[in-house]
């Protein structure tokens, strides 16, 4: 029985992997390594592992820069679930930062060439699903899904063209 099936069978509402970090960029490299390692274990290619790690990196950067306004004492939690049919990974990134209307979370116009504003675009390009929502208790939740062998791309749900995290 592969690891994904084994975890599913346990039917545990607690994510098989969950970790928390402070909103400090110094931990990003460790997060990338961990996520990439987990993805590799579940059968993703090296390229896909890199894409998942990049998406998580960009999501956390957005939380640090925009959600917590670069404060270094905010909490960020990342939970990981294996997905079946189709096989993949689901990653949920939660914070206690300032809430924003999910429909305002957007990438900048790519033809408007200037520094910044690319994080959401990158997430959208490399993941199959990316859904932002407000957490009932405060803060935001981003759910990311990557399917094995899917290449890319799916629409970035709950995102439109005005303001918010980029």
């Amino acid at each position, binding site marked *: 029985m592969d690891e994904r099936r084994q975890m599913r069978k346990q039917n545990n509402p607690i994510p098989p992997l969950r970790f928390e970090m402070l909103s*400090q*960029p*110094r931990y*990003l*490299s460790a997060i*990338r390594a961990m996520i990439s390692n987990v993805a590799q274990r579940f059968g993703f290619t090296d390229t896909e592992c*890199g894409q998942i790690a*990049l998406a998580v*990196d*960009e999501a956390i*950067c957005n939380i*640090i*820069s925009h959600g917590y306004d670069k404060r270094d004492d905010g909490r960020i939690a990342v939970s990981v679930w294996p997905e079946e049919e189709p096989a993949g990974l689901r990653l949920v990134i939660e914070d206690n930062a300032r809430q924003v209307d999910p429909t305002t979370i957007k990438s900048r116009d*790519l033809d408007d*060439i*200037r*520094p*910044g504003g*690319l*994080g959401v*675009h*990158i997430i959208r*390009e*490399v993941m199959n699903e990316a859904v932002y929502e407000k957490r009932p208790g405060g803060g935001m939740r981003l759910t990311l899904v990557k399917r094995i062998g899917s290449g890319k791309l799916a629409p970035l749900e709950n995102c439109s063209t005005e303001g918010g995290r980029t």
Partner: protein
Amino acid sequence: MMMMMMRGDPERFHVGCEVLADGVILRPVGDVDLSRSPVLRCEIIEAQKKSPQRLIVDLAEVPYMDSSGVATLLEAWQTARKHRGKVILCNLQEKVKAIIEIARLETVFTIAKDCEEAKGV
């Protein structure tokens, strides 16, 4: 005359600098993410103070870059445009090349295969 300098913590992220007759080569070493891009940004600002004709960023030792690194390079590109200088990226590793393509900037930056080619662009 060529001058070699090294700034930053040598065991972590650092940026080497080589002065050319008509410009500067910067050689960051390590991942360029949100924790490191401010260091690269400072080095680029310093290198661009004298409005070099060409700023070459040699990315041979940069295995990973996120959007904060891309933003840093775009800022350099904007600065260079103001004084009609060039920013040339060279020796891009796979992941760095990928993010530049995802950001659709491969035609914005001048990209060279290696430093020798970058010096002739």
